[in-house]
């Protein structure tokens, strides 16, 4: 099998997981920075609405590195899209496919279900819930918890932080409640 074919396929967890973990020492060794993406959303607030709200009054100079880091994330994802994107439909567990079919999700084109996430859907009840309400809960929740999957789950657990462990338990509690208790109600609307 040619190298390009291996790169184009989805990368297995035992390759991508450790490679993601290496971001922790990389950021520490480049400049004593701790991995965590969600604080960039706070920085964007601080840039847009300076000096109005106490929570957003801080020295942005210490944060530029992270905004540059997420600019890199956008570029990296774009480059994959132009080069080694997997051209095939995503292969997920057949059980998940069956469960999602009951909810009316049958399109596996791309990374997200086009039946929910599309521009025309934003004003519909379901689209509004998944995109607008969902996004709001992500942004509000991460700041209240003090971090997201990268900051708490990967960096926080790596450094043995108890607060991060409590947060990660919260992440999964919320996700399980939404998936198992609320999705059946939402999709019956």
């Amino acid at each position, binding site marked *: 099998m040619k190298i390009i074919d291996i790169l184009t396929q989805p990368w297995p967890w035992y390759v991508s997981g450790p490679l993601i973990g290496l971001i922790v020492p990389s950021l520490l060794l480049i400049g004593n920075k701790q991995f965590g993406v969600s604080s960039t959303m706070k920085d964007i607030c601080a840039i847009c609405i300076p000096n109005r709200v106490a929570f957003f009054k801080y020295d942005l100079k210490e944060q530029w590195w992270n905004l540059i880091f997420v600019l890199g994330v*956008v570029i990296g994802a774009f480059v994959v899209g132009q080069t080694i994107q997997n051209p095939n439909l995503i292969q997920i567990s057949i059980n998940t496919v069956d469960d999602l079919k009951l909810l009316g999700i049958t399109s596996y084109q791309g990374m997200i279900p086009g039946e929910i996430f599309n521009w025309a859907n934003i004003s519909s009840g379901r689209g509004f819930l998944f995109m607008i309400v969902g996004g709001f809960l992500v942004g509000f929740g991460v700041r209240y918890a003090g971090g997201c999957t990268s900051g*708490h789950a990967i960096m926080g657990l790596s450094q043995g932080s108890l607060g991060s462990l409590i947060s990660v338990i919260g992440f999964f509690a919320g996700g399980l409640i939404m998936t198992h208790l609320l999705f059946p109600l939402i999709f019956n609307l």
Partner: protein
Amino acid sequence: MKYFYFLLTGIYFGILLIKSEVVSWFRIQEMFRFQSFHMYGILGSAVLTGALSIWLIRKLNIKTIQKEGVIIKEKPLNRVSNFAGGLIFGLGWALTGACPGPLYALIGNGHLVILIVLLSAITGTFVYGLLSEKLPH
């Protein structure tokens, strides 16, 4: 120069987020339904690698590229907000199928409609900032 390295590390993360399919709404559903090991394998092995790296940095007293000692700030422990905020984020994570890193990556990967989700998330962070002093922590 330091900023160039941060940019490169970001590009590296962006490539991994897409190639590992962590950014996929479908993968997040599979995770919350316990129907595949994929996401657990990624998170678990990433944490193991991160923890091992930190242990090595401390053990061997490895310095940063500016020859400074590595300082890892303790994360504050706020039991109430850690759990309550985590719970709120978790509800949103299952809806959007994306945490903040994947939001940026999906936009870069051409899913421009996710710009709306990111804008809404930034609004959520802003509203938290307005209310933070009134919320229990």
